[in-house]
C-alpha cells in the first residue's frame, strides 16, 4: 500500500512536471518529447492499476505511433523561429484560464478535504490475470462486439479522411 502510494506520487510528479514542460517549451520538438515522457508516465499509471495490456497499448499507439506523426509535423513545419513572433489573439484567455485553473484546484482540495473519497468502498483485489490480453480479448470480442466492429468503420473514415487531407492534384 505504502509502495503504491510512493509510486503514485513519483509518477504524478513526473506527469505534472512534463505536462507543464509541454506548455512552457519554446521549441515545439522539445514539447513533443516532453509529451512522450508524459505518455510513459500515464502508461505506468495503467500498470499500477493492473491494466497491463492497456499500458502496452498506450505505449505502442500513443508513444510509438501518434507522437511520431506529431513529431513529423512539428519538425518539418520548422516553427522554431516563428513561435515568438506569433501574436496572442486572445490575451484575456491566459487570465481566464488561470482563474479557472485555480478554481479547479480549490474545488479538488475542498472535495478531498471533505472526505468524499473515503466513502468509496475499497475494490476487491483483482484476479491474477486481470488486465492481461485474454480477459481483454473476451470482453472485446464477446461483450463489446458492436463497438469493436464500429471501430473498423471509424478507421475506414479516418483512412479516407487522411487521403482527402493529403490530396493535391494527383491523388
Amino acid at each position, binding site marked *: 500500500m505504502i509502495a503504491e502510494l510512493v509510486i503514485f506520487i513519483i509518477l504524478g510528479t513526473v506527469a505534472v512536471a512534463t505536462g507543464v514542460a509541454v506548455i512552457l517549451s519554446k521549441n515545439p520538438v522539445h514539447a513533443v518529447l516532453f509529451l512522450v515522457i508524459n505518455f510513459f508516465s500515464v502508461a505506468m499509471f495503467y*500498470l499500477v492499476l493492473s491494466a497491463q495490456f492497456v499500458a502496452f497499448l498506450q505505449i505502442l499507439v500513443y508513444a510509438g505511433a501518434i507522437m*511520431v506523426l506529431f513529431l513529423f509535423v512539428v519538425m518539418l513545419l520548422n516553427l522554431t523561429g516563428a513561435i515568438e513572433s506569433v501574436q496572442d489573439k486572445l490575451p484575456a484567455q491566459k487570465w481566464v484560464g488561470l482563474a479557472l485553473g485555480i478554481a479547479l484546484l480549490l474545488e479538488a482540495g475542498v472535495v478531498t478535504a471533505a472526505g468524499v473519497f473515503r466513502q468509496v468502498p475499497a475494490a476487491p483485489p483483482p484476479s491474477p490475470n486481470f488486465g492481461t490480453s485474454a480477459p481483454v480479448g473476451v470482453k472485446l*470480442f464477446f461483450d463489446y462486439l458492436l463497438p469493436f466492429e464500429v471501430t473498423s468503420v471509424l478507421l475506414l473514415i479516418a483512412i479516407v479522411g487522411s*487521403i482527402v487531407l493529403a490530396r493535391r492534384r494527383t491523388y
Partner: protein
Amino acid sequence: MLVQYLPFLVLFIVAVAFAGGAMVLSRLLGPKRPSATKLEPYESGMVPIGGTRGRFPIRFYLVALLFILFDIEIIFLYPWAVIFLEAGAARVFLFFEILVFLGVITVGYVYIWRKGALDWE
C-alpha cells in the same frame, strides 16, 4: 503485482548506465579541439548552401498517418489471436467477426491503393 516489473527496471538502469557511461567516457577521453570548419554541417567538403531544415513532401506525413490507422487495426488482432484457439465452438463466430472487421478496413486499403497513396515516384 508490481514486483513483476522490477527486473525490467533493473534492466533499464543497466541499459541507461551503459549508454550514459560510454558517452561520458568518450567525452573525458577524447580531445577537444573545435574549429569553425569542424563545427559546420558536413556536406562532403562542400560549403553548405541554403537552410538546414527544409520542408518535406507531404508523403511522409501521409505514411505516418496511415501507419497510425493500420497500427490500431493490427493491435486488435492480438487479443483476438490470444482467445481464438481456446474458444472452442465460438471460433467460427470469432473468425467471421474479424473477417468483417478486416473487410471494412480492406475497403479503405483498396481506396488508398487506387488513389495512389502507396506509390512513391
